[in-house]
């Protein structure tokens, strides 16, 4: 154990100013840290880095599709682009940013000093990072060191038998399998950590039904990760055995089934969508009450709805497979279960509305992102209902309608709330407020860009445009919608520039945040910004869901009524 790490109490700016530590020692501290806040920040930063990379890939994809018969990208490169874009956005952007938010916030919100297994936490982060590196390494290494192939080009879903040795020579698919598999280990480690932390480390008085809603939803997310990532890992092990040892799992020539992979993949893949969107709900459920100045409407029902989503989502996977020729009975079953997920989701939407109803809503940037989230998630949920209707899905599945739908979920739902979360908790993490002015520019430009990109793609899908095509012909009615979508990307890119600029500018010159800039109610706002390594000098004790409300309104506390 190096001596310098024995005293890591440096992240507080004032202390840093006193004796400026050398860059290597700072680096050493961050690399060896087991502090949940630093790991959380590293997760988020790594996620944002991968976000920019795969966002650029998305931009290139849109350039290629802006015009019919475009040859900006050759087909193979295009296929690698969308594979890497999808894979990275799910596994290297969504998952780590979520893991980062969970890591940063859960101990602070439940009044604990760290996660339950701090070393495992560090391990989870590093193996995710190395796994992500390995995925991108395929661009360099796959042809150089081992002959054929380059980055994976089989889609993020990697349907067999396209991934079999016969159709995917070289090692590109192996890179996909291995990197996702090991970053999956990291996700499982971090999910177990979250569950254990929430179950065993809540501060005195915080019963399960007094936890902040964020913690509840994150608990459901962690449970989902623990249950649904192993099926993906198992399927990947089978595929690996197929590719390296000649096993026959997905070898259709030897009687293997191409459909089995789809089942295994979507048993993971669909709950994964909830793993990604539920943290969005979690963030919205924290931000909306604070900026509406009211407690969350129907806490118990919100908890119930989250848990219901966690359960029902395990039984809906085959709605990705309505076109594989399942029996009418199975199709109806999965259509039904899928529509059932809409019910708890609808309850949540109404409860958010109920929270805003009668409030005094302050439209700070975090709230703006959450309101946009509500609207866009409404759209996404409704197109989701359409896709759940099995016969309608025979037309819509694998068309651009689906692309538009899930980008409304993942950008309109998740990314908007992540932006909201960053605007909301950035002051806590850095002690500086983000600029409201730049934040509003970011919001509006990105909002326009996002809707301009993905709104028209619904129509392209309705006009029969399939997904994952690198080019299309004139005269099929798709040109104008694609052009609009590509123009939208420019706005989105500008929006992201505002965001990055805002972060840099605010770190440099931002207003001091103080402990509690938003007049909020959960425990993280009772400590300093940024919090000391131990979070709380004295572990707090709570009597209600809004401990800081109780303190701010001693004559009218929550605990009397819950």
């Amino acid at each position, binding site marked *: 154990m190096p001596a310098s790490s024995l005293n890591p109490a440096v992240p507080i700016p004032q202390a840093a100013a006193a004796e400026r530590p050398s860059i290597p020692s700072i680096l050493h501290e961050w690399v060896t840290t087991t502090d949940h806040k630093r790991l959380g920040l590293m997760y988020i930063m790594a996620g944002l880095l991968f976000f920019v990379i795969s966002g650029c890939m998305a931009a290139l994809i849109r350039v290629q599709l802006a015009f019919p018969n475009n040859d900006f990208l050759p087909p193979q490169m295009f296929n690698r682009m969308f594979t890497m874009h999808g894979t990275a956005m799910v596994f290297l952007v969504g998952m780590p940013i979520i893991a980062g938010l969970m890591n940063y916030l859960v101990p602070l919100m439940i009044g604990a000093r760290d996660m339950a297994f701090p070393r495992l936490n560090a391990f989870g982060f590093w193996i995710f990072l190395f796994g992500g590196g390995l995925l991108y390494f395929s661009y360099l290494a796959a042809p150089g060191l081992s002959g054929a192939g380059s980055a994976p080009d089989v889609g993020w879903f990697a349907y067999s038998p396209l991934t079999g040795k016969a159709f995917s020579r070289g090692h590109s698919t192996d890179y996909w399998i291995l990197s996702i598999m090991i970053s999956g280990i990291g996700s499982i480690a971090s999910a177990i950590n979250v569950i254990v932390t929430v179950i065993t480390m*809540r501060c005195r008085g915080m019963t399960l039904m007094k936890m902040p809603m964020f913690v509840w939803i994150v608990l459901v997310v962690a449970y989902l990760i623990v249950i649904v990532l192993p099926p993906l890992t198992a399927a990947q092990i089978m595929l690996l055995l197929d590719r390296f040892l000649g096993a026959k799992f997905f070898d259709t020539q030897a009687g293997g089934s191409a459909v089995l992979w789809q089942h295994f993949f979507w048993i993971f893949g669909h709950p994964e969508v909830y793993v990604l969107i539920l943290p969005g709900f979690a963030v919205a459920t924290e931000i909306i009450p604070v900026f509406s100045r009211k407690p969350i409407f129907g806490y118990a029902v919100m908890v119930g709805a989250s848990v219901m989503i966690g359960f029902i989502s395990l039984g809906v996977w085959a709605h990705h497979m309505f076109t594989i020729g399942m029996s009418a009975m199975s199709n109806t079953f999965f259509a039904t279960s899928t529509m059932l997920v809409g019910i708890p989701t609808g309850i949540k939407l109404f409860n958010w509305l109920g929270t805003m109803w009668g409030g005094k809503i302050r439209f700070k940037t975090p709230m703006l992102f959450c309101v946009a989230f509500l609207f866009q998630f409404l759209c996404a949920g409704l197109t989701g209902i359409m896709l759940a209707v099995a016969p309608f899905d025979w037309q819509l599945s694998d068309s651009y309608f689906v692309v538009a739908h899930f980008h409304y979920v993942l950008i309109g739902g998740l990314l908007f709330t992540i932006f909201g979360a960053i605007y909301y908790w950035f002051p806590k993490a850095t002690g500086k407020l983000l600029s409201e002015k730049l934040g509003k520019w970011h919001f509006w430009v990105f909002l326009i860009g996002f809707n301009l990109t993905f709104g028209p793609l619904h129509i392209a899908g309705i006009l029969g445009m399939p997904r994952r095509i690198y080019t299309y012909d004139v005269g099929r009615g798709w040109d104008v919608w694609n052009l609009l979508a590509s123009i939208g990307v420019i706005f989105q890119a500008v929006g992201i520039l505002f965001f990055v600029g805002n972060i840099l500018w605010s770190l440099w010159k931002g207003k001091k945040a103080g402990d509690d800039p938003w007049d909020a109610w959960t425990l993280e706002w009772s400590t300093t910004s940024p919090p000391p390594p131990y979070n709380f000098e004295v572990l707090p004790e709570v009597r209600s869901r809004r401990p800081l409300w109780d303190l701010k309104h001693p004559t009218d506390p929550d605990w009397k009524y819950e």
Partner: protein
Amino acid sequence: MPGNETKPSSETPTHIALPAPTMWPMVTAFGITLLVTGLVTNLAVSVVGLVVALVGAVGWWRDVLPADRHEHVPVVPPSERAQPVQVAAGRVEHLKLGQAGHRVRVPAEIHPYSSGLKAGIAGGAVMAVLALGYGLIRHGSLWYPINLLSAAAVPTLATATTEQLRAFSSTGLAVGIFAHGVVSLLVGFVYAVMVPMFPRRGWLWAGIVLPLFWTGLFYGTSKFINPALAGRVDWPWFVVCQIAFGMVTGYVVARSERIETRQTWPLAARIGIESQEERE
């Protein structure tokens, strides 16, 4: 992490034990990554990875065996600690509704949910009798209205001739009872929760307005929901059935005694620790 094991004390300690920083998890992760990278590059990489992973694992074990290693972080001086939470100066508006202060769940008085289920059953029964009566009178068949209802979900009935619709169909009967039962119960339930929310003249809403409203909805979509029914429906009878359902359901709900929702009371009063007077 001893956080949850130590007794909380009101005194601020001078040092707090936190898990010691360590590089071994990272080394282990790196080793594992190299281990799998070897599969797609060169086995030598795997060998190196295995060694690195083992070294990392041993280092990691030494961190936690026999006991977790900690470092003691000094607590920052009071001037750099968080400020005590200030009591808010502003006032909290109160909702007029409900007498127990402003912390209410609206509405304060409800019909018990069970009354909705009962009402749904009653309304559903009355409606079924009327519909069956229609079938007997107009088509001389009890099964006709049932089959028509089931045609929403059963493709063979949806394309059946009127003759076939008059005949008995076991699928039709099962689906019909199921569909009618589910919808009646749900609507009854909705009545129980929503009737207290309407302003005056609950019977008008429950008995006339709502049935007409959903009849209108159905009128607009019947072609898609149930083409067989849409082609044969006798709208006056249909409306009569719906209004009868609404009337009966609304009546049964309204007859039930309203109860005050428990949520309007503070927790303490609910669990009986404090008496009502002790509240403000």
